[in-house]
């Protein structure tokens, strides 16, 4: 029997994911938990495992398509399993859904909900309020699939709402990258000899001028293809869409002389882009620069590094800087904050969760070390290493990149002294670290070569004044120049 598999919510609140690649093809046998696709969400790439043993009956989206969470991405054929009615294919077609909604609204007098007894029982079993379920069956009848979809949670529903507000984006990305002619998303005629369908569904097919044997069946009953009214509707609309699309896709694209290569602006790259733009265009940035002489820190770190190595921890300067920042944040809590403009309030965070910008092949990621104030330097060091590694091999979870209250970016690891970091919005401050190097320092009328760390602190000037930024930086510098002070923290 056919079993539909919807793009799961691979991380908290993820609304959509790009199918990077399919690891299986139609007709392939799969075992449970075998990865079938690589899906890239906002900030991570995950492998989506098969929920069943069976064969891949149909792959619904091509690689490169951005798919809303909750859409059916693949249909498995599972032997010996009871038929399961279509799982809300309507979701892939927001229009169809809207239509069935309005239909069912009118068909419900006195809030009576039409659903077969088996579905009513299932609803009780899954704790679903049947009256609150939008039916996708004929005339808005509630199907088993509707109840299962509702049971899978309010989250998919919220995600749907989100994608519904951005239908243009979804459909564009579906169509745009395609250089193949026509019909990526539209369905090919199935051309079966025999199709099972409810009489009303056959009527609908006639009405829409669709040959029911051509409608792709996502379901089987008794080994025969079973077609639902939604599938007919979808096929009918898809066919029209494909026709409209064809000429546009066929027109050659004009390229600049000398040629160019294009890379998709999607997934992580696009997320970074959006966030940078939002931060830069929302928060008035001011960047404060200073340099901390850190001879003592260099010495201390060199000494402790060996001890840390014994404990299998690679000790960099980062944990010291983070501890210094957290110590300073306690004195200047305004820098550990978030501005909630609509609520007209500035939230001063009680947690000290420091994000660390990590450059990866796919782009910038910001894993967060939680509760830095409660952790030893060694603990912080080991966590930073672990998170950075995870970010680079993209095994980092979404949760590990959330909850930050202040961010550190270490562009100095590559080189340079000063920069103007962009705040990791909605945080209000970010500290950029330049390269630690010997630089001339004037002291007591003498110029000497000292180890120095250039600092670049960007602040949201709506919340933080320049004086506070300077005082905070001074404080950080004091801890870095005299790291023994951190012992008091």
């Amino acid at each position, binding site marked *: 029997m056919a079993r539909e598999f919807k793009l799961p919510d691979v991380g908290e609140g993820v609304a959509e994911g790009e199918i990077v690649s399919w690891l299986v093809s139609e007709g392939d046998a799969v075992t449970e938990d075998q990865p079938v696709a690589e899906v890239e969400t906002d900030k991570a790439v995950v492998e989506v495992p098969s929920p069943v043993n069976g064969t891949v009956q149909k792959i619904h989206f091509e690689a490169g398509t951005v798919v809303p969470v909750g859409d059916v991405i693949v249909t498995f054929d599972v032997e010996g399993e009871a038929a399961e009615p279509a799982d809300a294919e309507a979701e892939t077609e927001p229009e169809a859904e809207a239509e069935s909604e309005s239909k069912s609204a*009118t*068909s419900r007098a*006195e809030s009576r909900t039409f659903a*077969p*007894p088996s579905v*009513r*029982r299932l609803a*009780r079993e899954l704790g679903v309020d049947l009256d609150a379920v939008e039916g996708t069956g004929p005339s808005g009848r509630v199907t088993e699939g509707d109840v299962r979809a509702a049971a899978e949670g309010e989250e998919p529903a919220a995600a749907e709402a989100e994608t519904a507000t951005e239908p243009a984006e979804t459909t564009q990305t579906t169509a745009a990258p395609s250089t193949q002619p026509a019909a990526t998303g539209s369905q090919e005629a199935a051309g079966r000899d025999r199709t099972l369908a409810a009489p009303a569904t056959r009527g609908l097919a006639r009405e829409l001028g669709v040959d029911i044997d051509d409608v792709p069946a996502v379901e089987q009953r008794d080994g025969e293809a079973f077609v639902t009214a939604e599938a007919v509707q979808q096929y009918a609309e898809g066919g029209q869409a494909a026709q409209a699309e064809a000429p546009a896709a066929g027109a050659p694209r004009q390229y600049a002389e000398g040629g160019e290569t294009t890379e998709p602006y999607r997934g992580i790259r696009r997320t970074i882009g959006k966030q940078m733009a939002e931060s830069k265009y929302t928060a008035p940035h001011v960047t404060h620069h200073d340099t901390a002489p850190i001879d003592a820190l260099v010495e201390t770190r060199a000494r402790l590094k060996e001890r840390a190595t014994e404990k299998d921890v690679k000790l960099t300067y980062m944990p010291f800087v983070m501890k210094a920042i957290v110590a300073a944040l306690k004195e200047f809590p305004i820098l550990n904050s978030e501005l909630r403009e609509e609520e007209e309030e500035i939230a001063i965070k009680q947690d000290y969760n420091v994000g660390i910008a990590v450059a990866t092949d796919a782009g910038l990621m910001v894993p967060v070390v939680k509760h830095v104030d409660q952790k030893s330097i060694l603990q912080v060091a080991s966590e930073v290493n672990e998170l950075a590694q995870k970010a680079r091999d993209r095994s980092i979870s979404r949760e590990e990149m959330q909850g930050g209250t202040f961010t550190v970016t270490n562009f100095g690891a590559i080189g340079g002294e000063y920069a103007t970091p962009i705040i990791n919005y909605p945080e209000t401050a970010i500290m950029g670290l330049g390269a630690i190097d010997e630089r001339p320092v004037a002291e007591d009328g003498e110029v000497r070569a000292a180890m120095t760390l250039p600092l670049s602190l960007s602040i949201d000037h709506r919340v933080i004044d320049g004086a506070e930024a300077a005082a905070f930086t001074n404080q950080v510098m004091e801890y870095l120049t005299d790291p023994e002070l951190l012992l008091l923290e």
Partner: protein
Amino acid sequence: MVVGDVSTGTEVAVVGAGPGGYVAAIRAGQLGLDVTLVEKDAYGGTCLNYGCIPSKAMITATDVAHSAGNAEEMGVYADPEVDVGEMVAWKDEVVEQLTGGVEQLCKANGVNLIEGRAEFAGNDKLRVVHGGDGQGSETITYEHCIVATGSKPIEVPGFEFDGEHVLNSRQALAMDDYPESMVVVGAGYIGMEISTVLAKLGVDVTVVEMLDEALVGYEDDLARPVTQHAEELGIDFEFGLAADSWAESGDGIVVTAADEDGETTDFETDKVLVAVGRQPVTDTLNLDAVGLEPNEDGRIETDDQARTDVENVFAIGDVAPGPMLAHKASKEGEVAAEVIAGEPAALDYQAVPAAVFTDPEIATVGLTADAAEAQGFEPAVGKFPFSASGRALTTGEGEGFVRVVADEDSGFILGAQIVGPEASELIAELALAIELGATLEDVAATIHTHPTLAEAVKEASEHALGHAIHTLNR
């Protein structure tokens, strides 16, 4: 505890082995529960022993005789000789086979059977008093109790059932010798069914009804063919009269009935059958002991899981609210057992079909057009007369019709009313349609076997859609 009591424990105690109780017990047994079923009289309850089954046996037997003797139209001339004693014996065999089957099914499903009358002796135990000379008793402690004590015929003051002159339906169906004449008090479905049987056996029947029509509660156009046919069978209807008293008179009796103004009419007859309705049996249960009390109707209030106000006590069938119908009791029994077993069961049916086995039969399910309108639907109504049905005419029964009520907008079937041959069977398709949320088109587009009475269901659905073939469209 009474001295000499034997005390046993059970997970589920079911009181009453009628179509509610025995079904509940069997389902509970299937679900692995330890079940004890207490029955004071006969397995199968009123339905199998004194109601549905014996009455249907008698209805069919008298139909056979009546049809055979009234088929001159088809070129059949016969004057069947009826041996009422043998007819009743055959009926008893059928009943015996069925009740024996119930007992076997209970045992096969691990149900402990105890004979006796049960009453509550606290909120976790029942005292069962065994009948007969021994008068022994025992105590059953239970975790859950399902009350399924059913109902009994209502007695009209002055007409105490004596089994000789004043009969209830049970006694009337047990007669092995029929009188020349009978007065039937009450023109409800029981009175009408038995009157028809009696009339077909040649009994001179007079129906006395307080209200001014028969089969109250059914739409006029459903009841009319039944009363008309009953009159053709020789049944006299006396509406607007309430049975008042009776007295012996010579070999027979005189029944006195009074109208609203107190004017009385006397009916000389052999016996009187009182069939004015049934009342729930709760008085033998000692409900006080569990803290329950019947409502105004004498029923025990329940929720949609058949649960009473007492957490571990359930009530099903005629003692619970709702129509007094065996199939409704069975459904409640299943649900109560499943709920006790922890399953997500509930009484969430859309409609309870009902059938009257008169001649012709009446069957209904779901909403009438008026009720649908009152509930805010815009009803689409389709009707098909049996006079246009090939199969109906070939059985010699062309009266009546199938009516389907649906929601105009969505096409969902909301109800149906049938009067005519095999109405009781035909209603099942429409009950299924309602439960499944089928539309008119679903039924209309389904091929129905030709030539059958069921085609009338399809035609009525098509009529509601405005494209019936064999009748003019609305």
